[in-house]
């Protein structure tokens, strides 16, 4: 059974870390702010040269905003996990009554907090400076955010599993995950642009359905809710799979002594 108090302890530790650290607070919103400004001007320019009939602001700036939201959710999980890697805290944590479910729940809640801040900053800038109306997505906005949130959590948990399995140096594998996924999910272009093999991969990636829908809304004002339902089901299944993967990696780390070796050599 999950203990809310132990979950809160994980969140509280991260709150203490972020509260007193400009170096941790700034990355939450500085890069998304840069992206909003860059792609805001890009969308405005394309609207001017593209002529009337198609609005690039919801199609392009809105898509970048949603993609950055996904990346912030993922990094919210991995950064919280890395704090324990960097401070060699696993032995202290996992020799306590803390369970894996409680630990992951703490990371997810921390990610909700940091990604909500990033989303709020992006919305303010995109709306105030470039006239993006998030409400133009209508009810589709709910599945958009839900799908990207679930998939972000999933990628964050999988990335954390990779580092738990391969060691701190494997951080390198985690940072580029959003960049590696983005060509397949069509953040900036329709999936029909992709070759067949890439479209096959896109079909099993939940964000693909989100970005196809943002373009559909920009084009004819309608989202495909059936496809968004598939995306939500896929994202939920991936999230369960990610939790399973982390648990398996953790159990293997306990079997081999990797958890203990994160702090010290255990074969003494």
């Amino acid at each position: 059974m999950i203990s809310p108090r132990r979950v809160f302890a994980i969140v509280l530790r991260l709150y203490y870390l972020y509260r007193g650290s400009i170096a941790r607070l700034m990355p939450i919103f500085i890069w998304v702010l840069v992206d909003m400004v860059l792609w805001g001007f890009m969308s405005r320019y394309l609207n001017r040269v593209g002529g009337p009939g198609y609005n690039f602001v919801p199609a392009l700036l809105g898509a970048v905003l949603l993609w950055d939201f996904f990346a912030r959710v993922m990094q919210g999980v991995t950064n919280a996990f890395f704090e324990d890697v960097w401070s060699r805290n696993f032995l202290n944590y996992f020799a306590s009554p803390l369970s894996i479910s409680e630990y992951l729940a703490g990371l997810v809640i921390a990610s909700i907090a940091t990604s909500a801040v990033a989303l709020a900053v992006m919305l303010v800038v995109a709306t105030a400076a470039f006239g993006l109306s998030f409400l133009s997505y209508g009810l589709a906005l709910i599945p958009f955010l839900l799908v990207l949130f679930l998939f972000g959590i999933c990628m964050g948990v999988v990335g954390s599993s990779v580092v738990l399995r391969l060691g701190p140096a494997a951080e390198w594998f985690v940072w580029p995950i959003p960049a590696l996924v983005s060509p397949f999910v069509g953040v900036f272009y329709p999936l029909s642009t992709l070759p067949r093999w890439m479209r096959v991969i896109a079909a099993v990636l939940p964000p693909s359905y989100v970005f196809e829908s943002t373009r559909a809304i920009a084009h004819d004002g309608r989202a495909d809710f059936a496809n968004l339902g598939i995306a939500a089901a896929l994202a939920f299944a991936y999230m369960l799979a990610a939790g399973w993967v982390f648990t398996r990696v953790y159990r293997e780390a306990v079997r081999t002594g990797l958890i203990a070796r994160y702090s010290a050599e255990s074969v003494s």
Partner: protein
Amino acid sequence: MLAVRELRKVYGSTVAVDGISFEVAANEIVGLLGPNGAGKTTTINMILGVLAPDAGAIAIDGRDLARERRQALERTNFAAVYAPLPGNLTVRQNLRVFGMLYGVRQLARRIDAVLERFDLEALADARCGVLSSGEQTRVSLAKAMLNEPRLLLLDEPTASLDPASAREVRASIRAFAGESSGCVLWTSHNMYEVQDVCDRVLFLSHGRILLEGDPKTLPAEHGKENLEELFITVAREPLSLGDMAV
């Protein structure tokens, strides 16, 4: 309080712990001794639940660690030189986080009590990372006592302390074992300290318990002048004591 049965751990072709069994009773302080590579830390890691044994069972206060992990670990705590508390939080913040993880009741009062016990009040709002190694050891011990554990595991707790601080820590641990119903499993390479503190010692060599007994009388029973001499014999010539293995 602690019951270890036929515990075994193998890494590839290396047998780190070879079917050891022992118990630690309430109010008892037991020293787990042996040269580097004897299997002390492996044993402690298995008792802490961060290393899965290949065979055997561990029960803490009657709770089987494999089946009732949470209940068993709620009754346990530890301090080790290689597991300092995160340096980027203050002493009080760390104690609050770990107090919540261990389900400590009346946490604020309990934190004040351990801060006082380990003379950490003046350092309560300092980040752990800026403390001296001796101060960090005291913080680890404060965390280890926070939940008033039934089983306290200490892996070389005084290794980085000056003699005066080490004596105070030994007194605190003796007081813990005497006043509470808890027990202590202690590893150390300081044989004078072991002789001073422990009620009983277990000598490990190549993953097996080679000798067991009262640290004050054990050396004479094996024709040695003191515990250090016995330790050196265990480390260099374990076979000469092999027929006495328990």
